[in-house]
């Protein structure tokens, strides 16, 4: 299963599952909820944070946090 840190820039993915820990839950409350679609808008260089669009907002996560979100990549880059 892919995690959200493996999404390519401008590619979308559907959230499948979240880590059950505290941070994973917090992501859920922020709107990273299974079934939703997210798109990677930009990633900071040298392994810096990632900016995702979810619904109508842009949320930046570190790669460690993005790894807590399991996703299904859409077949082609948007």
């Amino acid at each position, binding site marked *: 299963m892919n995690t959200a840190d493996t999404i390519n820039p401008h590619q979308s993915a559907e959230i499948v599952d979240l880590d*059950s820990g*505290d*941070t994973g*839950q*917090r*992501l*859920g*409350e*922020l*709107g990273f*909820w299974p079934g939703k679609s997210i798109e990677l*808008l*930009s990633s*900071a*260089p*040298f*392994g*810096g*944070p990632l*900016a995702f*669009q979810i*619904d*109508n*907002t*842009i*949320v*930046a*996560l*570190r790669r*460690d*946090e993005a790894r807590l979100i399991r996703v299904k990549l859409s077949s082609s880059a948007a």
Partner: protein
Amino acid sequence: MEEKQEPKLVALAGVPNVGKTTIFNQLTGLNQKVGNYPGITVDKVTGKLTVKGSKVELVDLPGTYNIFPRSEDERVVARVLCGLQPKTQVDAVLVVADMSNLERGLFLTTQIIDLGYPTALVLNMADQAEKDGLKINKTLLERYLGIPVIATVADKRVGMDSVKSLLSSGDFKVGKPLLQPTDLADSEFIDKIVEITGQSNPFRALQIMKFIGKERGVERELKDRLLSLGDSSKFKPEVAQLEETKLRYQKIREILSKCVKSEAQQEKVNYTKKIDKVLLHPIWGMVIFLGLLFLVFQAVFAWAEAPMNAIDQAFAWLSHTTANALPPGALTDLVSQGIIPGLGGIVIFVPQIALLFAFLALLEASGYMARAVFITDRIMRPFGLNGRSVVPLISGFACAIPAIMATRSIANKKDRLITIFVTPFMSCSARLPVYIVLVGLLFDANTNFFNSAGTAMFFLYILGIVAALASAWAMKVLMKNEPSGGLVLELPRYKWPVPKSVLLTMYEKSKAFVFEAGKVILLISIVLWVLASYGPSDEMAAAEASVEVPEVKTAENLAEYEYQVSAKKLESSYAGLFGKSLEPVLKPLGFDWKIGIALVCSFAAREVFVSTVATLYSIGDDDEDMQTLQEMMAKERNSEGGKMFTPAVVWSLLIFYAFAMQCMSTLAVVYKETKSWKWPTAMLVYMTALAYLASFLAYQILS
């Protein structure tokens, strides 16, 4: 029945970045008060307003996504809304949500409804929702939630009158609960926690049950009883929370599917994405960030200079005038030499604080601040810091005081403490006069574009940065058991800042500094003044007598005489005696007792070094005399008759000033921000010990 003695207390709640503070500012203007929640380092911001004769008090709760506390901010919200916060018993709640992002907004709103409060919902950014092609059926939403709903565009003051009349009529409604406590736990368990907590609303009781394990500020007995009940019933707070989140989202989605129509899928957050292509660009983003930083730095450093000089002169004049107007005596001296300069020492920081916070407010309100955090996070991470530490650290070049006040934006406690701890290492502007005088002793002035003095200054600034980052890293290692904050950061839409909010931030921050940190600074400066002005009486008299009264009483001679007397008096004052008693300790660094006195007095503020040294070497401390001061220092001899200020001594002194914690204002602010003397004490000890060690090494190697 008329029983209105106290104004109603209405809490303003909402998710971050929905314009809640703009609404608060629009409603209350300057009638705001910043106070404390006991035991929590979160400001309690309240404001009053009178609409059509009825008085309402508003409390602006920190922005949160949830009632389940994971940070200090969220803790305040959970405490207040579960009725655990003494003196903040809320009568009604006004929830602010982003109309174009209702799902998250309703998550918080329905939680508050379930807690049983009379509630009303403000849907802000209605213009944006329209642009996004969202049509919201307000009447239907009101019916589903059972509370009044008002649409606003707070930035443009649209809909604010409706909010005001709602506040005056008090027409909040206890809404329809979205979830029942029994959806989440069995009724027997609920009955028990209701009984223990004494809460009338079972949902509130359940909420308290969920976070009681992490809660420190409640009665021991209540906590123990709830925790043992939790153990025996195998209650898992995280599981209950996850269950609630799932159910709540499910129900919210049902409501939204009926109340919201989204027109043909439009490109959302469009212009924001376009701007981000440039501002988050790996290269251009960094270039723009550095450019903006340079501008802020210039402002705080250069633009503040003129008002700071004016304040300096105004207080000097005031002190002089007071001294002449009042009858001479100890009390007059205390006022003119202790209290007035002490007050001046506080007020002089106001231009820097106001300017820095104006810029920070602009960056924050426009949405750029979150981008700055995004692009710098990677650089700060190895040092145990995060992107949010960058702005305070850079601001530290101007002055550590506003910089430390700016660390509030760091949600994680550990990251924030590390940032506060290392910020004073950044070479602040108060070190600059000291550096200029001392570096001037090292090199002959030359006018090359790159001169040695400039290189030495650059080295000192780099030294400060290295010390800050190395200390941050060391603290990260020491505090490895404390949880580090990750980075979950919303990048809000770009928008034009509202000038009124920026001005209010400037005003509030300056006021907070003057009244809170100011009290401590004033107290310490009076103590320092007493120590520097008084000494054992016979020694003071002897000091005064040791100076020859000039035979020809020209103005020049008398001024010279006055200087000599004040120098001798300082030498035999308590501060002077203390300086002398420090000599054995300072000798390994190459310092004599005169430098010792200067170091003691520098504790009021580093730049006091220049005036103290000037007094000790009996000359005025006007800027024009800087050259003469350097000449006097260059001529100064040590006890063996050699040159006192050898390169070894000067470097040792420079390094001491680069590292040592010699700023009581900073310590006062750290105390205010951390609510404990532990951190200021630790900083004082650590930085001074580091300074001592580094100066010792420098002196021993160079001499």
